[in-house]
């Protein structure tokens, strides 16, 4: 337990800036908004006068609350995914790049424990920061929207949670994939990993063209698993009717769907493969 705690603290000390990047991004956004409000107030503008929501249907307001929360979490999630990708390389290869790998590997610490703690810091650290930022943002945003426009606070928070779960599975998959690439490539793993996927895709397309095979596109599949989308394809009639409860229930079904299950499975495979590759590394 002591070892795990010491490892987590060490990873926190060495990677805290990257971990809390989403916090900085959202704080920066709020600073800009507050600055704008302040300038408008100084100029004597009536801020409430610009928000005329008297004629908006309640179902539209619910839709706005739900979609805006989903979208905002998706945006923050995008920043979280980028910072998790950066973390995947820094956590695995940072000690090597900083020429202190031998110091860390000269301790009686099992590779499995070391590897698992690093992975957990990357995944759980990113998810915890994302949740904290998304939660605080949603509380502020939904309170303001409820006060100004009378939107449903509960629907807004539901959108936040659904958006968070969507992002969480995408983050888990993407960062695990590039985590594995970081174990293979000590330098520029993002570039080299992406190049590897691109090369496989080109090979598949050439084979399909030349031999007439029907191998599905790996890039399309990976993009699907990596994306955070607010998909209405199956429920267009309901969108037109702004049936928000139905859309919310569809979203729950999608979150509990096969794609997210596959993201978890692929992430586990990437973790295990990464462990064996990392264990094979020579320490020069």
């Amino acid at each position: 337990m002591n070892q795990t705690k010491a490892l987590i603290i060490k990873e926190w000390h060495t990677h805290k800036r990257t971990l809390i990047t989403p916090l900085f991004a959202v704080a920066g956004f709020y600073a800009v908004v507050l600055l704008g409000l302040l300038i408008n107030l100084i100029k004597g503008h009536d801020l409430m006068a610009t928000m005329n929501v008297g004629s908006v249907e309640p179902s539209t307001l619910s839709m706005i609350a739900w979609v805006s929360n989903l979208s905002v979490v998706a945006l923050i999630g995008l920043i979280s995914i980028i910072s998790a990708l950066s973390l995947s390389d820094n956590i695995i290869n940072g000690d090597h790049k900083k020429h202190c790998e031998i110091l860390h590997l000269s301790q009686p610490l099992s590779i499995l424990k070391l590897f698992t703690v690093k992975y957990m810091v990357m995944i759980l650290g990113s998810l915890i920061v994302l949740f904290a930022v998304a939660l605080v943002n949603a509380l502020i945003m939904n309170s303001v929207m409820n006060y100004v426009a009378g939107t449903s606070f509960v629907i807004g928070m539901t959108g936040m949670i659904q958006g968070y779960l969507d992002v969480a599975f995408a983050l888990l998959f993407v960062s695990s994939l590039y985590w594995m690439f970081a174990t293979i490539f000590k330098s520029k793993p993002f570039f080299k990993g992406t190049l590897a996927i691109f090369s496989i895709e080109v090979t598949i397309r050439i084979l399909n063209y030349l031999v007439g095979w029907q191998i599905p596109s790996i890039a399309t599949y990976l993009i699907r698993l990596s994306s955070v989308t607010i998909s209405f394809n199956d429920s267009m009639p309901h969108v037109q009717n702004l049936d928000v409860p139905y859309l919310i229930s569809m979203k729950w079904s999608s979150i509990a769907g096969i794609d997210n299950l596959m993201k978890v499975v692929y992430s586990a495979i990437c973790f295990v493969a990464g462990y064996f590759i990392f264990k094979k590394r020579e320490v020069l």
Partner: protein
Amino acid sequence: MIPFLDNKQPLPDAYDIRNLSKNYGKFKALDNVNLTLPEGKIIGLLGKNGAGKSTLMRCMLGFLTHDGEVSLDGRQIHHRDHKVFEQVGFIPDVSGLDDRLTVQQTIDYIKGVNPRWNDGTAQKLLAISSLPLTKKVYKLSKGMKTKLYLLITLSLDVKFLLLDEPTLGLDIAFRKEFFNTILGEFFDETKTLLISTHQVEEVEDLLQEIIFIDEGKIILHEEVESLKTRFRIVTVPTDKKDLVMVHKPKSVSKTLGFVSVILDSSIEIPDAIYARPNLADIFMAIVGGSNESN
């Protein structure tokens, strides 16, 4: 050569290396190395650049895949075997600390991950080190980094300490302090020290055994005193140099009308001046080549 305690009982072998070979592509870094290192000795590892010193140490620590066997106290060491560090401490170049941490964070980290940590020793070393605890490691001078590396390594209750060119880049004062601290705080008759260094003259008086390595092969492993009695510096006037050159010495130095070579002590040369060689001289005599190893 088997080392003995005073009562002539053989010392237990701690490290046992059998048929160890390591290749980097086509380059043979270690070539069928056989070596036993006993407990309670200070052993020097001397070789030219690229002779295989660092590779040997890294194989002894399980850092590299290799052919052959490396055992510690009868237990075979495998690649990336963390258990070896329950008994072994390792100091490579002292600049290999984690620059991103502060001094205190570095100490807390090693204390947390290494169950061999001895808080008493650490406190003692910390008290005499005057290390700035809140300072980031990258802001420390090379001398301070050396003190920190020593603190975190010597605070471990381990039987073995492997030092791989630990004082590279340090000035002479810190180099001296480094080895004095190790001798004072680490070494006793139950512990073993393996030192690989280019500055062999600085550790020569500490060493009890010496290993010469060249092109991945162990050329010699012997007690220092015994080795020094086997060779001597033979100096003759230049006009008599044929008397020594007939023995085909690998290293010849010429100064002010004299020629000096290292020869086996059993060789007698008429009118020659004899002197006791140091380890660097003997290394040159046995291995030959440039003076890089000095």
